């Protein structure tokens, strides 16, 4: 009972344009009851990967399997019922809800699709609203009558109505204020723990993902650069990009510590840098990084990283250490551990 992505590549092609490889050979697995956080800046290909995982996009190569069966791209025909357990919450609840229908009816759509008998639907609806902390009279209202946070919870309720065993959530926390964000994060964690729902949570916010995810995968320009158990990735990042993402999160202590800025911007995926895709922005980049792209290696059991600095061959790492005399010290500095 799991979702498996194997060497999934998504390439967008347009008339007369250079093909845009948004996702490049990504392999990822989500077990039942497990929360996997997929993080990275906008433009890293997270949403494309999420859409490929539910079949909203057809992978150019590679395959997606849900409970061992291949996930077919959504077309005109109804999805096979074996895929009903795989559901998605889209990024923008302002666009993904129908403005002209009550939210109750929209949530019941998913129940009808999963052949829940009519007499059970009302009970299930009020149960779902309760789980997500929405008032019982929510069902009769229209999307415009809700705040962004409430709409997001309605969208989650709709996805849950089909009783999924696997949920893909694209930026579920993006439009929420602190309190609503905390509430949704707690609800998701409970669903994973008590109902064994597996989740792929796509977010640019590593701080909140750290709170609910069992595992974290960090994506940069279409590829996974690091993955591992959430607390390990957080406390000892192996990839410089992960370090930069963590260092850029402001600390909420009122002491005025500036977060660490990462220079440059994510490159155009149609024209990625040579070698390691991160090298133009990497503070530790050395000669090899500009030429060869590092492969994802298993640094320790369950912990993967694609960085020349973590290459098993000492000679490769040493060639980098020449240029970067003291890479440990500078990585501490990047994390801002000792900055005032």
């Amino acid at each position: 009972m799991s979702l498996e992505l194997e060497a999934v590549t998504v390439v967008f092609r347009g008339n007369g344009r250079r093909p845009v490889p948004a996702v490049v050979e990504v392999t990822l697995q989500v077990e039942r009851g497990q929360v996997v956080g997929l993080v990275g800046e906008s433009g890293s290909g997270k949403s494309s990967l999420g859409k490929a995982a539910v079949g909203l996009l057809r992978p150019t190569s590679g395959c997606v399997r849900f409970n061992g069966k291949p996930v077919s791209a959504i077309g005109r025909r109804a999805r096979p019922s074996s895929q009903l357990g795989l559901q998605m919450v889209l990024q923008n609840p302002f666009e993904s809800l129908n403005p002209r229908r009550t939210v109750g009816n929209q949530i019941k759509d998913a129940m009808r699709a999963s052949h829940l008998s009519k007499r059970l639907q009302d009970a299930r609806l009020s149960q779902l609203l309760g789980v997500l902390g929405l008032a019982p009279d929510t069902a009769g209202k229209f999307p415009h009558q809700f705040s962004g946070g409430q709409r997001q919870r309605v969208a989650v309720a709709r996805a849950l109505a089909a009783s999924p065993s696997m949920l893909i959530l694209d930026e579920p926390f993006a439009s929420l204020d602190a309190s609503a964000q905390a509430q949704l994060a707690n609800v998701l964690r409970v669903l994973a723990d008590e109902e064994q729902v597996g989740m792929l949570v796509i977010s640019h916010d590593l701080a909140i993902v750290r709170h609910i995810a069992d595992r974290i995968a960090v994506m940069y320009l279409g590829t996974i650069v690091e993955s591992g158990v959430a607390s390990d990735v957080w406390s000892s990042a192996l990839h410089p990009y992960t370090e930069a993402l963590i260092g850029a999160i402001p600390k909420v202590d009122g002491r005025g510590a500036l977060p660490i800025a990462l220079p440059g911007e994510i490159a155009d995926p149609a024209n990625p840098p040579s070698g390691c895709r991160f090298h133009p922005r990497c503070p530790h980049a050395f000669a090899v990084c500009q030429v060869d792209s590092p492969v994802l290696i298993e640094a320790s059991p369950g912990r993967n990283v694609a960085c020349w600095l973590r290459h098993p061959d000492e000679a490769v790492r040493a060639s980098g250490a020449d240029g970067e005399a003291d890479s440990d010290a500078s990585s501490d500095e990047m994390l801002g551990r000792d900055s005032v």
Partner: protein
Amino acid sequence: MEVGDEPLLKVRSMNVKLAARNRLISVVEKVDFDVFEGKVSGIAGESGSGKTVSMMAILGLLPHGSIVSGHAFYGGQDLLVSSEKRLAKVRGKEIALIMQDPHSSLHPMLSVGVQLSDHVRHHLKLSREDAREHSIDLLHQVRIPNPAASFTAYPHQFSGGMRQRIAIAIALACGPKIIIADEPTTGLDVTVQAGILHLLRELGERRGLAILLITHDLGVMSAIADRVTIMYAGRVVETGTAEDVIGSPRHPYTAALLAALPHPERPETDLVPIPGQLGPPGLRPSGCAFHPRCQYAKSQCSSVVPDLVEVRPGRSHACLVDPFMATL
């Protein structure tokens, strides 16, 4: 703390009522705050707390039919009673504004250069050539790569972070004394946000600009603000230095907001949501507006509106119960 310093902008007991259908709704009540030279002063609160409306009232940007009372002293005048003609001279020139979404605050059909130089030519009466030179210098100051080429480029050719830098360049164009930044980093990646925060802090420290930072994000507030004012339901509930307010909050609302946030340095702590929600203006609870959501509320909280009490110079809070008094 700079208690003795005279603030550049001093807002006192400001009330704002907005017209809705055929009644007036009070959205800002008795708000006080100060903005100091060379400092970043922050106003934080959830959406609907009145922080943006307060800023618009100061700049005279509220829709017709709105009723504003109180004072906003700036350079010997009260902005809240100034004529539109006088305000027009202050707005954009002495007090500049950076909006949340540079995608919609920049004109998509005009080049960056035109948007920058029009503004300078209008307020500073520079010639076309001088304005161009000045504009390129501004783009350089906000670290836009290749400023001369960017001068002729259009907003869509830049990323979100770069567009926000252009918006900051436009705000800086006329040498303002105060910059109001309304959610300047919301919607940006944290990596890009960090760069913008560095730039804002530098503007405060190196150029002595006064920055009024409006945001719901206490992390952003914590990174660059010197002083913080927390608003809830149109009222100030707590104010003080960033270290005091965020480090040791005195009002239950501030404490609840902090408990809901993930703390990067303490990843194991639970996220605690605030029960209930802030109702719309016009349907606010009686007494202290936070009382239905407050775990420390007592019976008096539902009937008495707490006033802002100064516990020491520059540090105030508005809570009848004051549950954290003993811990401080």
